[in-house]
């Protein structure tokens, strides 16, 4: 449940990361509160994905600093985690993230919202790359986690889909959730987006 008041969903203290002899980012400190929409920016190779993986808890070694997670999180990475041999419906119903037990209607509803109506029961490997991503994005409509970590969520999604997805992100933060995402596109939303430039630090 979204924490009320001033408890951050996520706190990052003095985080530094060095990869392959290069300092990717240094002394990064920020907190993510309910209602935050945080966009991580930086050129390719700036460490955006590495930062997200550290925050999610997938990378546990090789960095300095401290990450405190106070809330259940949902992480969507570069890999869609969609099994080609399973249908979109099965992919969601038997998802390995084990976040919740979804009812049949919830799953169908989520698939319809990401534009996969009519594709519920075809093997996922027959879907296009964009539709593949959409199966994964359907998890956002089902999710109950307050903190979303999204790595390039707009990849391979068409223009209409991007607009809908941005609407969903705003809806989520307005309901007391928080989003940390990486993207090279500027968000076209009527909501204050906090931008984190990995090279310079926190910018409003």
């Amino acid at each position: 449940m979204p924490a009320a008041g001033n408890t951050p969903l996520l706190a990052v203290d003095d985080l530094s990361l060095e990869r392959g002899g290069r300092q990717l980012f240094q002394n990064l400190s920020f907190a993510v509160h309910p209602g935050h929409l945080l966009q991580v920016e930086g050129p390719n190779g700036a460490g955006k994905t590495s930062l997200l993986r550290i925050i999610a808890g997938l990378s546990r070694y090789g960095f300095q600093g401290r990450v405190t997670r106070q809330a259940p999180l949902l992480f969507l990475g570069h890999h869609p985690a969609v099994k080609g041999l399973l249908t979109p419906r099965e992919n969601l119903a038997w998802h390995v993230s084990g976040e919740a037990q979804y009812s049949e209607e919830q799953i169908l509803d989520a698939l319809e919202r990401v534009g996969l109506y009519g594709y519920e029961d075809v093997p996922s490997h027959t879907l296009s790359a964009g539709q593949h991503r959409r199966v994964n994005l359907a998890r956002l409509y089902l999710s109950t986690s307050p903190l979303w970590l999204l790595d390039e969520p707009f990849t391979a999604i068409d223009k209409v889909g991007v607009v809908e997805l941005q609407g969903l992100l705003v809806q989520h933060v307005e309901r007391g959730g928080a989003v940390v995402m990486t993207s090279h596109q500027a968000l076209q939303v009527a909501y204050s987006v906090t931008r984190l430039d990995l090279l310079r630090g926190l910018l409003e």
Partner: protein
Amino acid sequence: MSAPGTLPFCYRLLRRQLVLAVRRPVEIGNPLLFFAMVVALFPLGLGPAPDKLAGFAPGILWIIALLSNLLTSDAVFRSDFEDGSLEQLLLSPQPLFMSVLAYIAAHWLITGLLLALVSPLFAVMLNLPSQATGTLLASLLLGTAVLSLVGCIGAALTVGLKRGGMLISLLILPFYMPVLIFGSAAVQAAVRGAPAGPYLAIIGALLCLAIALAPLAIAAGLRISVDG
């Protein structure tokens, strides 16, 4: 809406893995085919004398079962690693120990269990005395479960590597040896008419030990592999 309980979640994982396997039947068929092919090779190499084959049969059957298990264990986590499902599994609020056990159970059901069930047929091909068939079946049922558990440790450690197949053999073959020793000894005892119970009990003890410890090692191995 809350997170599913551990057991329903494990059941869900098990079902997912089994459906995935059934939709790619080659992976179920391959170890069985391998078993059949190698069994057919032995009479060619050792000569077709029935009594000679019968003497070697317990060891031959057990070694082939071990090798076909080794062949399949490499793939347990690979596709999940490649498509990102493994990351999601590590992030899930479910205990990884139990999730890993569900993966292993699925692996055992589609390799070890099937191998054990068809083994009496191959035993006939190698002229194994019929009084040992029951022991062969029982020892393979217990033993392949240990092999799956141990094999998955190697799979978890090498899943991040491009060509982990050879490394996995080097890593886990030493741990396969006790199972092989007691497994074939049980069948040999049954051939001689001696009680096979003690050997089966030792394999059962190995199984208990593996169930308790292997998932810990697998969970740690997966975390390291995904971290890299």
